[in-house]
């Protein structure tokens, strides 16, 4: 049940700066995910917290104690990584009890906590199987059980589901969160899978190029990202460049390639009249209809339609040449539009995200590197 603090962490590998001044507090009992593109430093960060990597500068504190120079075995952490590392010659039971055995806990005392763990992870029927006889999911559950029976209350998960098939991964991620909450652990979970981060975390940290871009609860980062990169990296978004033409009260008008959009200002940064700005909108808020709606509606042509099961993805080109992606749920129904159709695309003002035009240009601001 520890609280973790990273203060001013820096780490460089030659010229590559993996951590460029990281300050972060992980609350007691929190499930925190770290996401970001390859090479953003997320793995270096979790390895620094674990004690596998020594930062060049800065401190790691666990419950207020500086542990920066302590090796991993003295930090009381359970560490699970993507490459499943079980002892191949030991069965599930022996693998899970290994940690207690090496700490000299006598067999009768080991039994209770091991059996409880195996029960929680639904591994009871596999206890006498060897790793090669298990599915990928069962192997990773064994690894997680082993990490936890050592008594650690801080669970560090470094792409723990990354090597598993998508379907197994989806089921396991919920089990993982439930386990962490039931046992009252603090968990830090590094993942490249944004759906995983959104669905299991109390808070998400978005990283890029060695720095923290934004931290917040999933819903807030998804619906009201403060940073343009968060809008790009978490979920999908359409981006357009426009110019603020009028502002009044909580609303403003924007000129996008000659067409007008009315937006509601919800963020802290509101572009001033005459200033260039970036407008973003998630594809599921882009409305496609055969009749015009009130306000923020453009005539468009459907240029692509693809079926993704629970939704249709439409690519549309508006009269002003702006291309937009729209995602429409089609529970049990048929697609309403096909490529080549004329339609109306509506961008509801309350779902528009506004940003100032980044100094380095939009493309650079959204780039993953």
């Amino acid at each position, binding site marked *: 049940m520890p609280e973790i603090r990273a203060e001013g962490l820096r780490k460089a590998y030659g010229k590559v700066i993996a951590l460029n001044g990281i300050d972060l507090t992980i609350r007691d009992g929190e499930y925190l995910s770290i996401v970001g*593109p390859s090479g953003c430093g997320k793995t270096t960060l979790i390895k620094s917290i674990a004690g596998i990597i020594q930062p060049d500068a800065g401190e790691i504190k666990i419950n207020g104690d500086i542990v920066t120079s302590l090796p991993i075995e003295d930090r009381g952490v359970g560490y699970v990584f993507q490459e499943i590392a079980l002892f191949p010659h030991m069965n599930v039971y022996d693998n899970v009890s290994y940690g207690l055995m090496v700490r000299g806990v006598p067999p009768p005392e080991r039994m209770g906590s091991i059996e409880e763990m195996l029960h929680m992870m639904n591994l009871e029927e596999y206890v006498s199987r060897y790793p090669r006889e298990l599915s990928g999911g069962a192997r990773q559950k064994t690894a997680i059980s082993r990490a936890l029976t050592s008594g650690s209350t801080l669970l560090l998960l470094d792409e723990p589901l990354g090597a598993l098939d998508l379907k197994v991964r989806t089921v396991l991620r919920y089990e993982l969160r439930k386990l962490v909450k039931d046992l009252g652990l603090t968990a830090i979970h590094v993942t490249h899978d944004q759906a995983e981060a959104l669905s299991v975390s109390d808070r998400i940290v978005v990283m890029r190029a060695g720095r923290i871009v934004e931290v917040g609860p999933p819903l807030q980062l998804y619906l009201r990202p403060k940073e343009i990169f968060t809008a790009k990296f978490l979920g999908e978004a359409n981006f357009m460049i426009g110019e603020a033409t009028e502002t009044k009260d909580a609303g403003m008008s924007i000129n996008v390639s000659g067409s007008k959009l009315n937006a509601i200002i919800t963020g802290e940064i509101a572009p001033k009249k005459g200033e260039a700005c970036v407008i973003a909108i998630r594809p599921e808020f882009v409305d496609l209809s055969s009749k015009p709606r009130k306000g923020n509606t453009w005539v468009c042509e459907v240029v692509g339609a693809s079926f*993704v*099961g629970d939704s249709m993805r439409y690519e549309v080109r508006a009269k002003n040449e702006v291309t937009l992606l729209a995602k429409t749920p089609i529970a049990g129904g048929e697609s309403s539009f096909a490529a080549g159709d004329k339609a109306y695309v509506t961008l509801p003002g309350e779902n528009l995200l506004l940003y100032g035009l980044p100094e380095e240009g939009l493309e650079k601001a959204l780039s993953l590197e």
Partner: protein
Amino acid sequence: MPSLRLLNVTKRFGALKALDDIIFEVKDREYLCVLGSTGSGKTTLLRTIAGILRPDEGEVYIDGEKANDVAAEDRNAVYVPQTYALFPHMTVLENVMFGPLAKGTGRATAEETAMRVLKLVRLDKRADAYPNELSGGMQQRVALARGLASGAKLLLLDEPLGALDVRLRLELRTELRKLAKESGFTVIHVTHDQEEAMTIGDRILVLRKGRLQQYGTPYHVYNRPERIFVANFVGNTNFLEAIIESRSKEGSTLRLREGLNVVVQDSSFEPEEAVIVAIREENVSITPEPRGDEPNRLSGEVTAVHFLGSFTRYVVKITNGDEVASRVPIKDAKTEINQGDWVSVSFDPGNTRVYEYPTLGLSSELEAS
């Protein structure tokens, strides 16, 4: 013009049937996605088509000609394996030019082709780099580019986007399809990612334990899964155990555990038969208050709320102890519903599918391998 036909193809590794009586046909210029989990036989299938493996039984026809005895290099097919094998002493450009040059293409044309495909995989700026200077994901893109540039018209791609960052994977998959269509390739693309398969495949072939489970368009496979396995593997589905209570021309009444009744449109089973009723999560609606007398209204407690980005997923434990999950588009999110709340879930009798109760039980039918 490559078309492909497999007739009763079986491939054994010792006692294991990696492919078991596989029959299907791919038309010229068709984009086929082979969907299955680890160990389903999808790589074996690709290697058999490529000519790297010989089928133990059955025939492989390419362009209407039996190809069983045709060597891999004479099949006008290019196989891009999951583990990219690049020439370490050649630059990215030289690696990609290798195929065209080996086929006798002039240097200028080969370079032009290579640069075009490198641009597609976003590596034109790294043309002069050596493989060891690139990340794993970049190397995979080079391998893909090399396959695309090879001049062969039948592309056999094994998880071509597997090692890439999610963001890049989303962007590249649509472009991969576009390129295949523009260049007239026939493509067999192996993946475990159902969304990828649905977005880019003209047709999908679902494999499990070496057996073909279903073959059809994404729309067909998603909306009319012929087996429980397919309904589970593609999309997100609730499965409830039931007994047929009565039936008429309009449908059947089913008895769930603990005597709860639901109605379905299917009427193909006899009274007292044991069945599984499947309902897509997005076809289950959820309300805080019981509504009128709509059919199939079940009440229960919300045991979990999972935010998934464009959807929110509610898990409800209904009064008989079964779990029913409901996926609600974020536009219609029920912000008032929280974990622990008592709610109603309901579904349309037309949005259900009924399957014979599996001999080995439901869970054995859901397992991928």
